[in-house]
């Protein structure tokens, strides 16, 4: 399996869920009437107090604290695309302080469950989910950060 192209085009595995900026952000929604957040923007639960149902697009905080974490020791089924040889995918649920919500995501492959703790600070990065001959398909990942100084 040789790849003669010097670089592959980096594209989101699914459009509209995160920005491709450096640093990246998850694209969430904010209910116009009440100010509650949701993710993904168009698939979040709504607030019954928001009768109109209008949702504005917002970029969500890109740091948070690990609510819980685990891994998938066996390859998940389709539509997950398994890279051979399969390395266990680590998954974290991360609590965003301002949004007061928990968001799931893979953990950057340099970290495994042995490196993580509930309450650990993490930040959002992009990582490769799978590749084909021309593209790297990206998703969001959580990566531990050192505790920031001050606020």
């Amino acid at each position: 399996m040789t790849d003669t192209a010097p670089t592959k085009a980096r594209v989101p595995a699914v459009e509209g869920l995160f920005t491709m900026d450096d640093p990246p952000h998850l694209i969430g929604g904010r209910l116009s009437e009440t100010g509650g957040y949701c993710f993904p923007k168009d698939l979040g639960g709504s607030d019954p107090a928001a009768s109109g149902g209008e949702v504005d697009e917002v970029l969500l905080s890109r740091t948070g604290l690990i609510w819980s974490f685990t891994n998938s020791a066996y390859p998940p089924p389709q539509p997950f695309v398994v890279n051979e040889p399969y390395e266990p995918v680590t998954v974290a649920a991360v609590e965003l302080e301002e949004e007061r919500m928990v968001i799931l995501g893979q953990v950057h492959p340099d970290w495994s469950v042995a490196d993580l703790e509930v309450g650990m600070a993490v930040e959002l990065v992009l990582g490769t989910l799978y590749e084909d001959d021309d593209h790297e398909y990206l998703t969001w990942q959580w990566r531990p950060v050192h505790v920031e100084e001050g606020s």
Partner: protein
Amino acid sequence: MDEIAVLGVGMHPWGKWGRNFVDYGVHAARGAIADAGVEWRDVGFVSGAITVRCGYPGYVAGSTFARALGFTGAQVASSYSACASGATALSVARGQILSGACEVALVVGADTTPKGFLAPNEGRRTDDTDWLRFHLVGATNPVYFALHARRRMALHGATPADFAAVKAKNSRHGVHNSNARFAKEFSVEDVANSPVVSDPLRLLEICATSDGGAAVVVASMDYARRLGVTDPVRVAGISLVTPTYPDTVIDLPYLATDSAAAAEPPDLSFKDSIGARVYEEAGIGPEDVDLAEVYDLSSALELDWYEHLGLCEVGEAESLLRSGATSIGGRIPVNASGGLGAFGEAVPAQAIAQVCELTWQLSGRAGKRQVEGARVGVTANQGLFGNGSSVLLRR
């Protein structure tokens, strides 16, 4: 809430039989009808729990089972609410009976499941959170079970040995159940020697997917009396609640919780509210309950249910387990049937199977796994996408 009578129950043993799901449902239904002492022609309403894995006949489960039993002109309905489907089907039957639309109803669910992980439908469906969680995160069902297990460890000091002890307990119960798939007693060491599926949960702690079927025949209290049944097991409450916004506990199949930025979370979490509703309907509290059948999709989740059902205070599930209270012979046995740990999951049948077990228990017919003197039992269960499920039975 007015009560209805459980006249009879029946099951097809859980396993990996590979036959048509209709066979299992018919077997269970015939068992329930015979147990009830009624004729199939007496059943005025068939309430089917849907399977989404067996093609069109599964989507119209009510009429599929009715036809297989022989069409009699009975009315039918079919319900789907994932793992809660059986409770939904029971609720539909209760509504028919209490409205006077019928006197006797059959509630039946059965499934033939594929091997391995349950996975979403085919096709690229980027507007389906169930598809997104598999594609973008690789978040299988056990990943969610394990997130909750790890959270319990961090919050309440649960240990992998506690989780393994749940599995060992349920396997001890299950060896006395001829309908269970795994009639084998597993030790804490057996669990510890099984491979990790989603850390900290191991293979023996994750429920398998099984084939199986379960059915109950329910009737109006008047009909039961005319049949000469003076002291039937009764359905005293059914809870099918959805969460209240904002639901701040991550659960499958979502990528995120609701946000509490603009609205405070409700006093009762979603899972707390499932039990609260069923107790309210029955007009009793958790202190009145003699035994419970709960959805141990993983061993660790059983501990959560102790608290959600009010069997103990938050944070005390581990000590309740360690005290032996939730074993048969203890104060409040949980999963006397063996639970999903011994059965595996047959989605549309499982909530009905819980009702079968409680009926056998409350009528003193549970054999070697009998909970002595049981008069009140409660089930708990949950279907993904916010489908609560709990049934309270008493005698």
